[in-house]
Each structure stands twice: as structure tokens, then as C-alpha cells.
């Protein structure tokens, strides 16, 4: 049996687990290619107009996998931590995909309620039921997949550049170099190193979030807010770029919360959608990098 894995949304974070697990229980896996123009176009064609860009791209990936596999793995992420949620769109993703894309193969849409071991084992058992019902195989595959996943540490922390910005935002925006138009490379070319939120310690995030009146109930929002505020406080970077996609509900709140806390720390929100013109995008990056560098010299002058 060939299992298709769409290379969109949280693939960037959990693909090691998914691929290893499926391989270990005896399936062949095929991942869709990294996002390209035709995948984006397919996605825009099938997806509901009001959805955000990553959702549209995901539709494109699923559409690409049709005819190339026997089943598509689309985990329904209800939440990844207890009592918290991810975006509502993740809960209804299966419905959006299955109602809009015709001729779909079997969908493995087992819901994920939490990433702790017990819940994930239940997930593994259900997700594997089309291939094997042998508990031992599933357990062994699960352990191996978890081990590999724990070894995999995504994140960017460039050293040796004159300036450094923290790139905060959803993983599926930051690591998809097609939809963010090679943002990391562009920043590097401007002489700016990139730091991603994964390098902020988890305890620090908790501490920052505790300052809020109400703890954000989105796991991702909690991480981004905590990371951004911590980076600003400790000056781990010279500025923050928040990479957001148009009509993302979570980002509309988080960017505002970060702004409210912000004093004079450079902060820029980059919005992505399927029409983003590259020229305007580059200009904003240029301006931001100039500003960062000028600030450095200005402060240097004050010191000397």
C-alpha cells in the first residue's frame, strides 16, 4: 500500500514521525513535492476562497497526490497539548478537502488530540488499521518513529552576519520557501542572519505567557507570543519579522498582542497571500534591513 503524505501545514514539523511510522508498518510513502506554482494553482482552484494561503497550498498538495497513492495521510489535529487548541481550520481540514477535491483516494484522518505518548499510541493504532492490526508491529514502529522525531530538531540560527532578526510565524510559512519567496535566503543576502522561535527555551515562553490576563488557548499562538516577547526582552536578535498569511485568525490576535507589548524594538509583519508581488516584498525587506543597520550605527555613535 502506498501512503501519500502532503507536504503542507505541519509537515515541516512532524514529517519525520509520519514517514518513519508509515515505513515501519510496511507501507511505501510518497510525499508531494515542495510547493510550486502548479500546486498553488491547483490549491487555489479547489479551496474555498476565504481560507488562508497555507490551506490553499495544502489542497494543492492533496490534489497532486491523487492517482499516485492508495491512501492520503491527513491527520486531523484537534490539539497538540491538553486543554489547548490549534486553529479551527485544522479541525475541519478533512471536510474541506473531501468536499472540494474530487476522485480522492482513501483518507487516513484519525484525529490527534494530544501529543503525549498514550494518546499518540491510540492514534497510531487507528491510523495503522488499514495496513496492520498487529499491536507489536505498531508499537515497535511507533517507538522508532518517536525516536527519530525527537532527534529531528528544525530551526534556523545563523551566525556570522552583521545583523540578526528573529523570524516568528507558522512553521508552514517559514519553511515553505516557495510561498515565502525565499525569505531566509533574501535576508541572508542582505546581510541579516535568521533566528527562529525554536531556539527560545520552553520555560521562558511559559514565563512570558503567564504575564497575560488570559492564557492563549492556541498552542501555536502561545509559542509565538512567548518567543517574540522573550526575544525582545533579552535582545537575542536585533528585530522581529512576523511572517503571517492573510486572513489568518490567530495571527491577527498575536501580532496585535506583540505590538501592544512592544516599545521601540523593530517589528515588521509580512503578509503572504497568493497574489503577493515579489517587488513590493523585496522593497520592504530592503527598507527593514537598512533600518536595522542604521539603528546599529546610531546606537554605536551614542556609545562611543
Amino acid at each position, binding site marked *: 500500500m502506498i501512503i501519500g503524505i502532503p507536504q503542507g501545514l505541519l509537515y515541516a514539523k512532524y514529517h519525520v514521525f509520519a514517514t518513519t511510522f508509515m515505513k515501519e508498518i510496511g507501507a511505501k510513502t510518497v510525499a508531494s513535492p515542495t510547493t510550486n506554482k502548479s500546486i498553488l494553482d491547483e490549491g487555489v482552484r479547489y479551496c*474555498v476562497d476565504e*481560507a488562508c494561503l497555507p490551506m490553499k497550498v495544502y489542497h494543492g498538495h492533496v490534489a497532486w497526490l491523487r492517482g499516485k497513492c492508495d491512501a492520503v495521510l491527513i491527520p486531523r489535529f484537534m490539539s497538540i497539548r491538553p486543554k489547548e487548541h490549534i486553529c*479551527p481550520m485544522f479541525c*475541519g481540514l478533512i471536510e474541506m478537502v473531501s468536499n472540494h477535491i474530487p476522485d480522492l483516494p482513501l483518507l487516513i484522518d484519525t484525529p490527534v488530540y494530544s501529543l503525549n505518548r498514550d494518546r499518540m499510541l491510540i492514534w497510531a493504532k487507528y491510523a495503522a488499521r488499514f495496513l496492520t492490526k498487529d499491536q507489536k508491529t505498531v508499537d515497535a514502529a511507533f517507538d522508532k518513529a518517536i525516536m527519530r522525531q525527537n532527534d529531528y530538531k528544525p530551526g534556523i540560527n545563523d551566525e556570522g552576519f552583521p545583523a540578526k532578526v528573529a523570524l516568528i510565524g507558522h512553521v508552514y510559512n517559514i519553511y515553505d520557501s516557495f510561498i515565502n519567496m525565499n525569505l531566509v535566503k533574501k535576508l541572508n543576502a542582505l546581510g541579516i542572519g535568521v533566528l527562529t522561535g525554536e531556539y527560545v527555551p520552553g520555560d521562558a515562553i511559559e514565563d512570558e505567557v503567564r504575564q497575560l490576563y488570559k492564557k492563549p488557548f*492556541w498552542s501555536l499562538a502561545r509559542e509565538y507570543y512567548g518567543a517574540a516577547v522573550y526575544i525582545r526582552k533579552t535582545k537575542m536578535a536585533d528585530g522581529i519579522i512576523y511572517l503571517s498569511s492573510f486572513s489568518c485568525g490567530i495571527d*491577527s*490576535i498575536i501580532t496585535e*498582542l506583540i505590538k*501592544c507589548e512592544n516599545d521601540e524594538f523593530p517589528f515588521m509583519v509580512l503578509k503572504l497571500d497568493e497574489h503577493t508581488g515579489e517587488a513590493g516584498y523585496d522593497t520592504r525587506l530592503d527598507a527593514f534591513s537598512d533600518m536595522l543597520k542604521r539603528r546599529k550605527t546610531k546606537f554605536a555613535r551614542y556609545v562611543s
Partner: protein
Amino acid sequence: MLVTFPNMGNVAFAARALCQGLKIPYVMPEKNNKDTLRRGSFYAPEEICLPFKVMLGNFLECIEKGADTILFVGSCGPCRFGEYCELHMKILRRLGYGNVNIVVADFSPEIGIDALRHRIAAISDKSPVGKLEKLKAVKNAMIIEALCDRLDRIAYEMAGYEVNRGTCKRLMYEYKAKILESKEPDETIAMLRGYLRKFGEVKTDLSLDPVKIAIIGEIYTVIDPFSNLYIEEKLMDLGASSSRMLTPTWWVKDLVMKPVKLNSPNINRAARKYMPFPVGGHGKECIGEAVLAAKKGMDGAIQILPLGCMPEVISKAILPSIRRDYSFPFMTLIVDEVTGEAGINTRLEAFLDMLGSIKKRGGSGRKHNLTKMEPAGSLLRRCANEADRKELFFE
């Protein structure tokens, strides 16, 4: 302490009655208008949904009139509504209203029942009346809310059957104006019951067969007439009969029944096929209502959502499947602060024309069996008797 609350359809009437009953001074927010929205959207983040902007406008207006405590509700669902209070606080603080206290009634296990009791006590301790009086005030507020919802429902539904076009609308405006004049909750209730009787006396022609439309979608924009550009009143003018299930009374009932999973079983059952998992907000309810409306034999449905509402976008993605399975027409109306009214009017008229012509042709050729339909005007016959019924909390 001067209390205020956001304006959301009839909820403000109930909140007003509650304050009157508790003898707490309050500021009644003005009826939502362009100025409220303009002010709210000026200070609100650009991409946030419409309800946030309107509510922020309400708060700013009331604070200028001297209010220093805001009553608000919260949630912990995946929808953005739960984060409103946090953002409202930050924005008000930035505007220099740091002294304004927002009391958030958050119904979740997250904050714990003690914290909720503490927050409610902050308000109720300021009230000079006794415990029994307080309970009575809450009860009266709920009765007023239920009566208002019932009156609105009758008005919207009866508008298609009335002989003299505009009678229902006039009565509806009349009672809403009179509520603001009354000083005591008991007086308000007696007045509203009187109007229930008046609706029973409206001349109707049950042989008329108006276009029947279900209003579904996001709860704030559906309930608050200003946010949806008075769509229900426009439908009244056009001689259509409209109905919606989401009301503030329903919301309270839903909230109470949620822990035991008995909240609106009919809606959940209808939605299960299309949306087996909840998506937050009222996305599942939207689907359930659409299916129920199709089964009930209504002619069409209008989905209303604020721009960027995440749960409703998922519902919108599923509605085409319901349209295909039941051949049930839909129209989706996305509202935000720049929605032009002329375009909406045109779309509404075109939609009604289309539904009318389908009706004339003899239906849209639905294959499935309709469930037992409520005979035309049964609601109207019922409403006169109900005027004297005491338990109007829930239908």
C-alpha cells in the same frame, strides 16, 4: 461604579433589566450605528472580525459617558472570540483607559469556578438588594431575553403572511423603543407580554405562500441587525418569511447543556454526516441548521459571516455538498466594516427572485422525503395562547 455592556441585538435589553433589578447604575450602549463601527475599527487590529470592532466601538462610547466597568463574556473555544477580552484590555489601556475594569464571565474549567465566582461577586457585591432579589433579577432578565427573542421570531416569520405589509415591522420597532422607556423589569415583562398578544391580533392570510428563508451563520452577525445590514428587516420588506435558530436564549441554553452533551441534539444529529468533529464557534450549528432547514422544506438559506471567521469558512466549504444532496439553495453574505449596502440589496432581491421562481416551478425537484412540515402559520396560532404562559425560558 458605572456598569456597561456590549450591544448585541436584544442582549443589551436583558443586561439592562439585570442592572435595573440589581439596582446597579449602568450606561445603556447606544444602538449600534456607523459611528460605533467607525470608531471601533479605527482602533481595532485590521484583520480582526467585525464583532470585535463593533464591541470596541460600544465600549469607547460608553466609557466617554462615564462607565468604568464592562460586563463581558468569554470562551475557551478555538474561535477568536475567547481572546477578545485580552485584546480589548490592551487596547483600552493603550488609549489611556487603564482604570476601566473588564469583568469577564468565562465559562471554562480553565479558570476554575472560584475565579468565576470571584469575578461575578465583584459586580453583585455592589448591589444593595438582598439575595432573593438578585435571583429574581437574573430570572427577570432571562424572561425578558426569551420574550424579545420570541417576539422577533414571530415578527420575522409572520411578515410573509401579514395582510397589511409593514404591520409586523412597526410592532417590532414599537416594542424595542418602549423597552428603553420602562424603569422596572416587571413593567417591561408586562409590556412585552402585551405585545405578544398584539402580534396574535395582526391580520394574516395563511393562504399566502411566501418564500421561507433560514438565516444561518456566525452568531453575533446573525443576531445583531446592524452587523448584517438589517437583512432580516429587508426580508420583511420584501414579503419573505425568515427564521433563525441562533438566539441569545439558545446560546444560554446551549452553554448550560454543553457539559452534559445535551445541547441542541437535533442540530448535532443533522450536522454529524457533514461535520463529525466540532470546529469551534458555531460552525457545526451552521451546518446542522442548514440541513434541518432543507429537511423542513424551507426555500433557501442565507449564511452570514464576518470576514475571516474561521469556523464559518469551514462551514462555507461544506455548504455546496448540502446544496448538492438536498438541492437547497444558499447565499453567503460576508460582512465587514466596508460592506456596501446597495450591492447587498441587489443580491438579496436576486436571490429572492430566484427562490420565487423555483417555487412557482414546483420546487427544486428534491428527491428525499421531507420530514413532517409544520403547517403554515401554526406558530401564529400558537403565539396568542402563549402570551399568558409563564415559563418562556426555553422553547
